[in-house]
C-alpha cells in the first residue's frame, strides 16, 4: 500500500500479528532506496569527503612512520652513531617531531571537517523528513502518528549521526591502515605480508555474517523504540484523562511491555557485537602468531634481518588494531542502515496532493473579494473501494454563504476537505473562478481558500504569533484588528503578557472556546476569497458565536463561505443550505424556503428550535 489517501479506510486488525505496514511501522521503500538516500545525503559533500579522506591518509602515514623510524634508528642510526655520524639520529629526531605535529594538526582538521560534513548531512536529512512529512496528507499523519515521526527525526537521525561522526573516520581509517600496513608488510617481507593478506578472507566472511544478523536486530530495535515513543507521547498529550481515569498503573504495564521489547532488541544488538569482536580477534591473533613464527624462522635461517622482523612485528599488531574499529563501524552502519530504511520508507510516501508543475494564476477580481466555486462531476472514493461521495455537481456563486448540514458521516467534512484540497477528488474537477485547484500553487491556493476546523490547535509561541499564522507578514496592528473583529481582543489583553503571552504547551491555559476565537482571528487575518468553517464554532458560547457571525457579516462580507455547523443559528444566516445524507446532497435551497417544506432541514430546524430557550 503506497497510497496515503486510503488511510481513512477501515482497518482490520487481526488478532495474530498486524499485517498493515503502518501497524508494523514498516512502510515499504523501493529497493536500494536506503543506499540511494545515504548517497544523496553525502553527494553534495563529495569534495569534502575526499579531502577528509586525504587528510586521514596523510595522518595515517604520519602515524605509521613511527615504527619505520624505529627500524631506521636501530638498523642505521645506532651503527652510524657509533661511527661518530650523528646525521641519522638527528634525522630520526626531526622526522618524529614532524610526524607528531603533522598528525596532530591533521587530526584537528579532520575532526572539524568531518563534523561539518556530518552536520550538513544531518541538517539536510532532518529538513527532508520535516518538509516531506508536511506535504503528506492529514490521513497519513493520523495513521503514522506524531510519535513515529518524532522517532524518525530524532532517534533514527541520531543513528546516522553516529555513523557519520565516528563511522567516517573509522571506515577511512580502517581501509587506510589495512591497505597501508599490508603494503608495508609485503614490502618488508613478502611471506609475512602474504599471511596478513590471507587472513582477510576469514575476516570478510565474519563481517558478512555479522552484517546479516545485525541488520535484522537493528531494524527491530528501530521499530521498538518508535513504539515506545508513540506510547510516551500519547500519554503526555492526554495526561488529564490519564489522571482522571487512573490509567497510571495500566499505562505502566503497557509501557513496560513496549520498553521490554526495546530492551531485548537492544541487548541482542550488543550481543551480536560481542560475537563479532570475539571472532575477529581470534582470527587476528592467530594470524599474528603465524606471522611471528614464519618471520622468526626466516631470521633464524638468516633470510631476514633482525631489524626488519622487529619492524614487521610492530606492524603486525597494528594491522589488526582497526578490527575493533571496523566492528564499531559495522555496528553504526547497520544501525544507521536500519534507521535510514525507515526514513526512506517515509520519504517514499507520495504526497496525496502533489504540487503543480504548470501553475496557473487566479484571474484578477475587481469588486467583491469572493470567488466562484464549481464542483464539476466530482466524486470521491477511497482506493480500497469505499465510495464516500458519489459523483455530483455543485456551483457556489461568488460571495454566497452556503451552510452544509447533515448527520455525522454524511460526507460534509469530506466535501470541505476536497474544497480545501486536503485531498484531490477521484474524479472530476473543483474550480475556483474557473481554475482547477490542482493548477494553483500552494500560496495562491491559500490566498484563495482557508479552512478553520473544530480542533483549534495552538503552536508553541505567543498568541500574536499564533494569529499571524494566517499571514506571517502581518503587523501587530493587523493582528490586533483581527482579534478585535472576532471578539478575542478582550481575553487576550487579559492574559499576563497580552498578545506576547506564551501559550506554552499546546495552549494548556487557554480554554477551548478561546482557542477557537484565536483560530478565527487567524482566518480573518488570512483574508481568503473562500472561507470554510468545519464545525468551527462548537466550543463557543452564544455570544462568541454571535461575534463570529458579525465578523462574517462585516470583515468577511462578500467572501464565499462554506459553513458546516450543528447549530442552526449559524445556518440561519446562510444564503443557501445543502442537506447531505450518505454522501449525497438531498436538499438544496435558501433556509427560509427549506424550513417551510417537510424535508430533513425542516425537521432539523424544529429540533433546534425546541432546544433553545423554552
Amino acid at each position: 500500500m503506497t497510497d496515503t489517501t486510503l488511510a481513512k479506510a477501515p482497518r482490520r486488525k487481526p488478532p495474530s500479528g498486524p499485517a498493515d505496514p503502518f501497524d508494523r511501522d514498516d512502510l515499504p521503500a523501493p529497493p536500494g532506496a536506503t543506499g540511494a538516500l545515504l548517497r544523496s545525503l553525502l553527494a553534495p559533500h563529495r569534495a569534502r569527503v575526499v579531502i577528509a579522506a586525504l587528510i586521514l591518509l596523510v595522518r595515517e602515514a604520519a602515524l605509521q612512520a613511527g615504527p619505520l623510524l624505529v627500524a631506521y634508528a636501530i638498523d642505521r642510526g645506532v651503527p652510524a652513531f657509533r661511527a661518530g655520524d650523528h646525521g641519522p639520529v638527528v634525522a630520526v629526531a626531526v622526522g618524529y617531531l614532524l610526524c607528531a605535529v603533522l598528525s596532530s594538526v591533521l587530526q584537528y582538521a579532520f575532526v572539524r571537517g568531518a563534523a561539518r560534513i556530518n552536520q550538513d548531512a544531518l541538517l539536510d536529512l532532518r529538513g527532508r523528513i520535516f518538509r516531506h512529512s508536511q506535504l503528506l496528507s492529514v490521513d497519513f499523519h493520523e495513521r503514522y502518528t506524531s510519535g513515529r515521526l518524532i522517532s524518525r527525526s530524532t532517534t533514527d537521525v541520531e543513528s546516522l549521526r553516529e555513523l557519520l561522526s565516528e563511522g567516517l573516520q573509522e571506515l577511512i581509517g580502517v581501509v587506510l591502515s589495512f591497505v597501508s600496513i599490508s603494503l608495508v608488510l609485503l614490502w618488508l617481507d613478502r611471506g609475512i605480508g602474504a599471511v596478513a593478506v590471507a587472513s582477510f578472507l576469514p575476516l570478510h566472511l565474519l563481517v558478512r555474517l555479522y552484517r546479516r544478523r545485525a541488520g535484522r536486530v537493528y531494524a527491530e530495535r528501530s521499530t521498538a523504540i518508535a513504539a515506545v515513543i508513540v506510547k510516551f507521547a500519547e500519554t503526555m498529550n492526554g495526561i488529564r484523562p490519564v489522571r482522571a481515569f487512573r490509567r497510571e498503573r495500566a499505562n505502566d504495564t503497557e509501557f513496560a511491555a513496549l520498553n521490554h521489547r526495546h530492551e531485548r532488541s537492544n541487548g541482542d544488538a550488543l550481543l551480536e557485537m560481542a560475537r563479532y569482536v570475539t571472532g575477529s580477534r581470534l582470527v587476528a591473533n592467530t594470524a599474528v602468531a603465524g606471522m611471528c613464527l614464519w618471520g622468526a624462522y626466516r631470521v633464524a635461517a638468516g633470510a631476514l634481518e633482525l631489524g626488519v622482523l622487529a619492524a614487521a612485528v610492530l606492524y603486525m599488531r597494528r594491522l589488526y588494531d582497526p578490527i575493533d574499529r571496523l566492528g564499531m563501524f559495522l555496528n553504526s552502519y547497520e544501525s544507521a542502515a536500519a534507521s535510514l530504511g525507515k526514513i526512506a520508507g517515509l520519504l517514499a510516501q507520495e504526497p496525496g496532493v502533489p504540487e503543480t508543475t504548470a501553475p496557473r494564476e487566479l484571474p484578477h477580481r475587481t469588486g467583491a473579494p469572493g470567488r466562484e466555486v464549481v464542483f464539476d462531476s466530482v466524486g470521491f472514493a477511497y482506493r480500497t473501494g469505499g465510495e464516500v461521495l458519489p459523483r455530483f455537481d455543485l456551483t457556489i456563486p461568488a460571495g454566497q454563504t452556503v451552510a452544509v448540514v447533515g448527520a455525522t458521516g454524511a460526507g460534509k467534512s469530506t466535501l470541505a476537505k476536497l474544497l480545501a484540497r486536503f485531498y484531490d477528488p477521484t474524479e472530476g474537477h473543483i474550480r475556483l473562478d474557473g481554475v482547477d485547484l490542482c493548477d494553483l500553487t500552494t500560496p495562491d491556493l491559500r490566498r484563495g481558500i482557508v479552512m478553520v476546523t473544530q480542533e483549534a490547535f495552538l503552536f508553541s509561541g505567543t498568541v500574536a504569533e499564533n494569529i499571524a499564522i494566517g499571514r506571517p507578514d502581518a503587523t501587530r496592528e493587523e493582528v490586533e484588528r483581527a482579534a478585535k473583529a472576532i471578539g478575542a481582543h478582550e481575553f487576550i489583553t487579559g492574559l499576563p503578557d497580552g498578545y506576547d503571552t506564551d501559550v506554552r504547551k499546546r495552549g494548556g491555559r487557554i480554554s477551548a472556546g478561546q482557542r477557537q476565537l484565536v483560530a478565527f482571528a487567524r482566518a480573518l487575518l488570512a483574508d481568503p476569497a473562500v472561507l470554510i468553517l468545519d464545525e468551527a464554532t462548537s466550543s463557543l458560547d452564544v455570544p462568541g458565536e454571535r461575534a463570529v457571525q458579525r465578523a462574517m457579516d462585516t470583515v468577511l462580507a462578500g467572501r464565499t463561505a462554506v459553513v458546516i455547523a450543528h447549530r442552526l443559528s449559524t445556518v440561519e444566516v446562510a444564503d443557501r443550505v445543502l442537506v447531505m445524507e450518505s454522501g449525497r446532497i438531498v436538499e438544496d435551497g435558501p433556509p427560509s424556503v427549506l424550513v417551510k417544506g417537510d424535508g430533513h432541514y425542516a425537521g432539523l430546524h424544529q429540533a433546534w428550535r425546541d432546544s433553545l430557550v423554552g
Partner: protein
Amino acid sequence: MPEKPIPPRPDRSTVRVLLRLRPYVRPVRGRLVTAAVVAVVASCLSLVIPIVLKWLVDGPVTDRDPGGVWLGALYLLLLGIAEAVLFGFRRWLVARPLSSVEARMRADLYGRLQRLPIAFHDRWASGQLLSRGTTDLMLVRMFLAFPLTFLLVNGVTILAGYVLLLSQDRTLGLVLLTPVLPLVVLSNLFERRYGVVARRAQDQVGDLTTVVEESVLGIRIVKGFGRHRSQAKAFRELSGRLRGTELAKARLLAMIWAVITALPELAIGAALVLGTVRVADGNLSAGTLVAFLSTALALRWPVESIGFLLAMSQEAATATERYFEVMDAEEEPDTAEDTHGRRHPDGVRFEGVTFRYPDAPEGTPPVLDGVDLHVRPGETLALVGGTGSGKTTLTALVSRLHEATAGRILLDGEDIALMERDKLRSLVSMAFEEPTLFSASVGENVLMGAEGAGEPELRRALGVAQADGFVDRLPEGTATQVGEQGLSLSGGQRQRLALARAVVGKPRFLVLDDPLSALDVHTEARVEAALREVLRETTALVVAHRPSTVMLADRVALLSRGRIAAVGTHQELLRSNAEYAWLMSGEGDEAR
C-alpha cells in the same frame, strides 16, 4: 517556546552528577565490575604480548633456536586466544544489564511523569520530556558501556604501562612522563567548556522534538493555511542552530584530541632519539629499546582515547542532569487520612475556593476567587460563564487535577484534600471538553471509566451516549482500535465515546465539561434524553455553553470574575441576571 533549561552550574562536578546513576547501576554492578576486571586483564595481555615478542627476538631468534621459536609462537597464540575470549566475554557480560539499566530508567521516567502535577506538564513541552526519555538515556547507556569502563581500564593500562616502561628503563620512562601534567590540566579545562555546549545541544534536540510533534498535531492548520513553507523555515532555523552547537562541540573535541595526540607523541620521539643514542653507547640492548617503544606505542591508543571518553562522559553527565531535572520534580503529596464514617450524603460543596496557577506571575488576579457553591445530592447543576471565566479550571479542582490554592471542596462532607487521589478519582468521573481517546479498542476506551465493568455496562453506556449505532457499524464493533494508532473518529463520535466513558461506572459524582458541543441537534436531543436517566441517580456538575445543555440541569450557577455571581433555575436567571441572559441568548450586549 518550551521551558528554558537551567544552565549548568559552573561548579557542578561531572563525577557528582554521574554518581546519581548509582541506584540504577547498583543491580548490575556485579556484572559491570567483572566486566571492568576482564577489560583490565585483557588490556594487560595486550601489554604482555610485546614482552613475549621481545623475548622471542632477543632469545630464540638471536640464538637461532627453533624449539624456542615454536614455544614463543605458541605463547603468542595462547595469549591471543585469551585476549579474544576476554574481549567477547566483557561485552557479553554487559550487553543485557546495560539495556536493562536504560529500560529501567525510562520506565521510571515514564511512571514519574504520569504522576507529576498537571501544572508540571503545562510548563514542559512534551518534546523536551520525550528527548529525555530517548536520546538522553541512550547517552547514559553508552557512557556505562564505554567511558565508564574504559576510563578505568585505560587509566589502569596507562599506569601499568608506565610501570613497565619505568622498569624497562627508568630514564626513558621519565621522559614519557613529562606530558602528563599539561594533559591533565588541559583535559580539565576542556571538560568544563564541553559540558556547557553539550547541554545546549541536548536542549536544542528537545526543542526540535517539540516542533516535530506540533507539526503533526497541528497539521490541519498548517495545511489549511498553506503554511508548510514557513513551518519548514522555522524548523530549518532551529536545526541550523543545533548544527552550530554541534560544530562548536566538534571544535572543542578537535582541539583536545590534537593536544592529546601531539604531546605523548613528542615524548615518544624524544625517547626514541635518546634510546638510539644509548643503544649506540652500549648502555641499552636493542631488544629492550624495541620492547620499550612497542609498549609506548601500545599505550598510544589508550592515551588518545581519553579525549573522546571525556567528551562522552560529559555528554552523559548533562543527559543525567536533564533526566534528574524531571525526576527531582515534586510529586503531589498524598495525605490520605481515614475518613470513613464521616461521609454523609451532602453532594459537592465548594467553600471559599480560590485558585491561581502555581506558575502565574506575581500580581495577576486568581482564576477563581472565593467560590462558594453547593451541588445538592442527586442534583445536576449547570455551570455557566463567559469564555475563559474559569469553568474548566473549577471542574479540574473536583478531581484534584489541580489543587485549590485556598478554601476546600467537600464530597459528601469529606474534604477532598484529605482523600487519596485514586479513591477520589474513582468517585468522580469526568468528560473533558476535548475528548481524548487512547490507542485501544472502543470497548477498552469506554471501560476505562469503571473497574470491573463488563459487556452489559458497556452497552448501557454506549446507549446513553447514543454511540451504539455508529460503534456497531465500525469494522469490528467495540473491538475496533481507535485513538492515535487506530481509526480516527469525528469530533462528535469521540465526544460521545468520552461521555460513555464518564457514565459507564455509574459514578457518584459526574463532572461533564460541555459534553454535547460537537453533536448535531438530533443526536444532542437523544443523548440528553438518555443522560437525564443517568443524572437522576448521580450528583453532577455540567459546564454548559448553550441553553440546550442547561436543560439537563436542575439549577444553574453563573461564574463571573472568579466568583459565583448567581444561582437559580434557568428561567429565574434569564429574568433576573443580565449577564446570564446575554450568555444564553447573545442579545443585550450592554450587559458586558
